[in-house]
């Protein structure tokens, strides 16, 4: 489904050129569950951003469902993100002035879907995720675990092919962290590919495929 070939990403820091990713190749199959682990600065977040089309590689080729997405225009990349990719962030990134339900509706709103359909879908997700009584709560009225579940609902509402989670438990206590992980794994069991970036080995180990990175290179678990 996803195929990265010799992807490099260089950053200009002052006079120096820092290589965050160095000739990385990776293949992710539909419905796969993999974790990306490694110390800080090993390039795991950069890799995730590249897979999520939030960033462009300095060199290399990225194909999604056989289509070259490396050189798509900004608007077309946005469309790919909208339809095929779901993001889950460490800091949830919910919009504070919108209710839980409205936050979940956001991607559908951007896609121009009717209000009635949006409400029906977000209602179903809230129900599935055990958040129905929190539908009209603002993020600040929710616990960390609840916030992350709302964020996951938002990420999955467009039924993407792949979920990208960047330290999804990094800002949660153990118990709610485990709840979030099992929710993500349940979604993966339904067929959504799942990529979890973490530096917590216990969470990383749960994945069927574990990718280890050091200094911008995949040292194990790559294709």
């Amino acid at each position: 489904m996803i195929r990265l070939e010799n992807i490099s990403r260089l950053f200009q820091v002052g006079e120096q050129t820092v290589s965050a990713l160095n000739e990385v190749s990776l293949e992710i199959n539909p419905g796969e569950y993999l974790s990306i682990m490694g110390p800080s600065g090993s390039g795991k977040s950069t890799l995730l951003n590249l897979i999520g089309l939030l960033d462009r590689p300095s060199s290399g080729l990225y194909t999604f469902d056989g289509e070259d997405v490396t050189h798509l225009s900004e608007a077309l990349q946005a469309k790919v993100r909208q339809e095929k990719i779901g993001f889950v962030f460490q800091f949830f990134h919910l919009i504070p002035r919108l209710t839980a339900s409205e936050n979940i509706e956001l991607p559908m709103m951007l896609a121009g879907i009717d209000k009635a359909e949006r409400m029906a879908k977000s209602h179903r997700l809230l129900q599935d995720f055990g958040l129905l009584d929190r539908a009209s709560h603002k993020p600040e009225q929710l616990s960390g675990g609840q916030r992350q579940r709302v964020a996951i609902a938002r990420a999955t509402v467009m039924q993407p092919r792949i979920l990208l989670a960047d330290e999804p438990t990094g800002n949660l206590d153990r118990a709610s962290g485990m709840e979030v992980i099992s929710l993500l794994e349940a979604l993966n069991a339904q067929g959504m590919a799942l990529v979890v970036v973490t530096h917590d080995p216990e969470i990383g180990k749960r994945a069927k495929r574990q990718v280890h990175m050091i200094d911008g290179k995949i040292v194990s678990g790559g294709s």
Partner: protein
Amino acid sequence: MKLIDIASFTSKSLVGAKTRTALMILAMSIGVAAVVVLTALGEGARRYVVDQFSSLGTNLLIVFPGRTETKGNMPGMLIGETPRDLTLDDALALLRSRHVKRIAPLTLGSGLVSLGRRNREVPVIGSTSDLLEIRHMTLLEGRFLPQIDPRNAVPVCVLGMRVKEELFGSSQALGRWVRIGDRRFRVVGILSAQGQSLGFNTDELAIVPVASAQMLFNIPSLFRILVEARSRNDIPLAQKDVERIFAARHEGERDVTVITQDAVLSTFDKILRALTLAVAGIAGISLAVAGILIMNVMLIAVAQRTREIGLLKAIGATGNQIRRLFFFEAAILSLVGAISGWLLGEFGAKVIAGLYPSLPIAPPWWAIAAAFATSLATGVLFSLLPANRAARLDPVQALSRR
């Protein structure tokens, strides 16, 4: 993204930042209100002057003695050359012109009008029976000055409304005698209330035949001669005739000034219109300032909402969509600001109109339209930069911030 969703999303973000929104709307509305109030004032002043001139009469020429001109020798008074006075005979001679419909000579003085122990100092005008028609005055009761040879001094007078009330109260005034200065006059008519007209309050007047006034104030000359031309087209011809007649009577000297009401009117009209425009322009500056304020606050908003913009991009928003969101926000702000400013301005104009009832104050429609257009244009124009900045934001960096 649907328009209704854009509207609800942006209005929620505006409501979410109440102080910021309120301040921006306030700035915009002050700008618009300033334009509305100031142009209303300017336009009111213009209409006031125009009304005053029209109430003076129609197709009017005003003759007064003296003439402003540049001469090569010494000032006239040093070489024994003073402007000749206007006389009653001069005035009557004007009737020879085909283009003159009627005339009214004017003498002006101030006299103490008394009835028994009550007295009141009022302006006294000496004129003829035609003054009533020429000056568009109306009578409340009685009749105006008699149609007699203007050289005859007849002891009759017409009183303004106020003078009558002050002296006679509610009792009958017609037929009674009053004393003006050292002469006695019989009241033959009362003017109906008309109010202010070119500084003269016709309610505070006493009008007597011109010859009587000349005797009363001991002056042989006239203050002005009002000439009514036969029609609007006759005005320039009448003006020429009047000047010709005076030149003939004054040994070829052109020593009177004839102004037409039209000329005065259009000059005032032009001056006051220019003034209104100038004032509107100055007020427009405050609108531009409001626009710059909107830009600043929008830039801050973009900085504050970096994470939100990053998130929107991550879940599939294009740069254009984000630009549109910020654009729309600025447009809503400007529109709400313009509407509230307009209402504020109308209210201000109403208050001023209440304080100065004689000024016909109302903001002209073009000023309101211009204020709306300017506020929308500045709002949208000054949101270009912030909206572009938001649209170009790098999502990775935006999301990496806490």
